[in-house]
């Protein structure tokens, strides 16, 4: 029988909640603002809005080939385009867990909780690997 009185929640949980809360608001704001600039035509898109129906039913590879859309991190250099601007919000939302885990890493390290440090490091490795666009597949 386990000692139930020693049970506790991770103290880092509340800090994690605060980071998610604030970054989620930031990400949503960037997403909506970027989309508004796109829809209103304040930023010109790579692919004109009225041409999109010709392309959105194509498989990804054909879509990329025909529209010349960017992959990987190339979008950073094209933020002035309407269909690229909303990706800032998308990237912020996809980065929230990464930021939280970086904070967790230092917290767990400071408290000397080795198993959780190891889990955090492995998860960070996979997140950075997928965000880096270093893994490629060939058909």
């Amino acid at each position: 029988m386990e000692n139930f009185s020693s049970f506790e929640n991770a103290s880092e949980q509340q800090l994690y909640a605060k980071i998610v809360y604030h970054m989620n608001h930031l990400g949503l704001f960037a997403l909506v603002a970027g989309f508004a600039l796109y829809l209103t035509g304040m930023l010109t898109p790579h692919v004109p809005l009225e041409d999109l129906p010709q392309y959105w039913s194509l498989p990804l590879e054909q879509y990329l080939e025909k529209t010349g859309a960017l992959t990987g991190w190339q979008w950073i250099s094209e933020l002035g385009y309407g269909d690229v601007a909303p990706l800032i919000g998308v990237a912020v939302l996809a980065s929230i867990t990464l930021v939280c885990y970086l904070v967790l890493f230092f917290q767990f390290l400071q408290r000397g909780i080795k198993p959780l440090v190891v889990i955090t490091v492995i998860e960070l490795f996979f997140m950075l690997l997928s965000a880096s666009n270093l893994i490629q597949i060939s058909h």
Partner: protein
Amino acid sequence: MPWWGWPTILFFTTFLIGVFGVMAGIGGGVLFVPLAASFFPFHIDFVRGTGLFIALGSSLAAAPHLLEKNLASLKLAMPSALVASTFAIIGAFLGLWLSALNPAYIQGSLGVTIIGIVFIMLFAKNSENPSVTHGNYLTQLLQINGIYTEETTGKEIRWTVHNTTKGMLGFVIVGLLAGIFGLGAGWANVAILNLVMGAPVKVAVATSSFALSITDSTAAWIYMNKGAVLPILTVPSMIGIMLGANIGSKLLPKVKPSVIRNMVIGVLFFAGVRSLMKAFGI
């Protein structure tokens, strides 16, 4: 139809998915992907990319409240999400590869998966407070335990889990499905956390919802890097589902969840069959 026609229909569809998904206790991603893949003109590659961001957005919106209330557990989510997110990367590449070979492979396997999910939803019965007297070695090593206050009784509930290794094997499948199809996989998380590992149902539901934000982040980056995130689909869908979920949570006390749940399961079954038919060109 003008260019804005389908995105507008998509917005209203995701709004309804948000309303009914919350009332039925079913995540948005699992409803969105088969419906959008079967009834909209968008290619399944873009539908899956959007599905992942819908699941990610819903999970991120719910996480702060669930963590603050100690219903979602960081210590339970971390090892589960590590396994699931690792396999979500493999799943994401597998999905994009299969789709490049022949989109019908993805469409067909999505149909089969959705029909399988319908049966799991119909027959898996959660256990409110499973009896777990002691955890195993892995549970103790990772200190997977916690406390939360049951609001209906004001009682403090202390919990731990067992069968951790079996549970982690379940998360391999959860991760693969999330990556391949862009599904949230909350339906599977809850069953594993509650029925296999013995977490109280409230902790299982909340931790599942929170853990999706970790699992889906890795796959979401892959879809984004490959160019499979189209703002014209993703943004209206995310906004629609968030607004819908907000309305749904307000309507929740006034409706009978079991009736809505059966209705939604019916729609899901129909979308699964439609997806399967589409794979065979019917």
